């Protein structure tokens, strides 16, 4: 498995495989509800008008560029679909399922082949992906250490 971290890939160029056109840079990420995988790459815009590239449309997450199979889904997500708006994992508050704050997310290591989160890096240590429960606007909720 080859992995990278969110901070390290921010700003990386996004290029379409078919036309070699640069369509933008990596601005951020959208995670699935359980915070276990990257659902989409945020390329441009804000909130509901963000331009998102679904992970399924990523041909290759390369060391110099992200190769996209198709043009990204640009803007105008339906108002009810809050998950379409990029939620900031970086800097998010971390809360244990027993109600204790564990610091903030400094970085996230992910598998560049699958988009799966490997571990979350926080303050003094890291949190394995198996402990992640959900990512919301208030906090990243994680299970307590066994």
């Amino acid at each position: 498995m080859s992995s990278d971290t969110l901070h390290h890939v921010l700003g990386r160029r996004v290029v379409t495989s078919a036309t070699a056109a640069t369509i933008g840079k990596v601005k951020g990420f959208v995670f699935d509800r359980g915070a276990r995988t990257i659902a989409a790459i945020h390329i441009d815009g804000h909130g509901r008008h963000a331009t998102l590239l679904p992970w399924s449309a990523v041909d290759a997450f390369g060391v110099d560029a992200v190769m996209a199979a198709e043009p990204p889904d640009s803007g105008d997500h339906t108002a009810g679909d809050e998950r379409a708006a990029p939620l900031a994992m970086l800097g998010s508050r971390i809360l244990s399922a027993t109600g204790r704050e564990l610091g903030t997310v400094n970085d996230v290591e992910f598998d560049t082949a699958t988009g799966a989160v490997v571990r979350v890096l926080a303050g003094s240590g890291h949190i394995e992906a198996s402990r992640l429960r959900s990512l919301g606007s208030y906090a990243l909720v994680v299970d307590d250490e066994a």
Partner: protein
Amino acid sequence: MNLVRARDVMGLPVVAIDSGEDVAEIRDVLYDGEASRLIGFTLNKRGRFAGRSKAVLAAGSVAAIGPDAVMIADESALALGDDGHDVLDRLGSARPVIGNRVLSADGTELGELVAVVLSTGDEPRAVGYEVRAAAGEGTWFVPISAQRALSGDTLVLPAAATDYIRNDLVGFGAAIASYRSTEMEDRR
């Protein structure tokens, strides 16, 4: 056993484990003094629409009370509308406990009841009272199971309960366990 004063829970955000969203915050603690039972919590809304919420959080729907948040499994843990009013109606006739004078069964005034103490795991319960000493020597804790009578202005404790008084919450957790086992033996 981890314990917390009921008033220290007020203002904590209520966070859903399945979404990471703060769905409410604790407004007040619903405690039935006569039955010495924690019923649940009234709530305030969060964010831009702050103010009293119609929803109520029953004690049995709490996943955990932590130092920084009250956790629920998901938003369905909040009882809305009629369910919520039922809880409040039941509490309408409850006698207040905060401010009660505390007397031992032998007629000695022990102090004033200043707080209800809760256990913090899933299904939190009321487990003790904090009492400010009559002689002005700080506060101490007494197990709720020791309660013998409550009138709305006076709480009566058995003389033996004073053996289990502790002046710190950590020692109190162990003392409650010890008090309970003694009670069980007495009943045999």
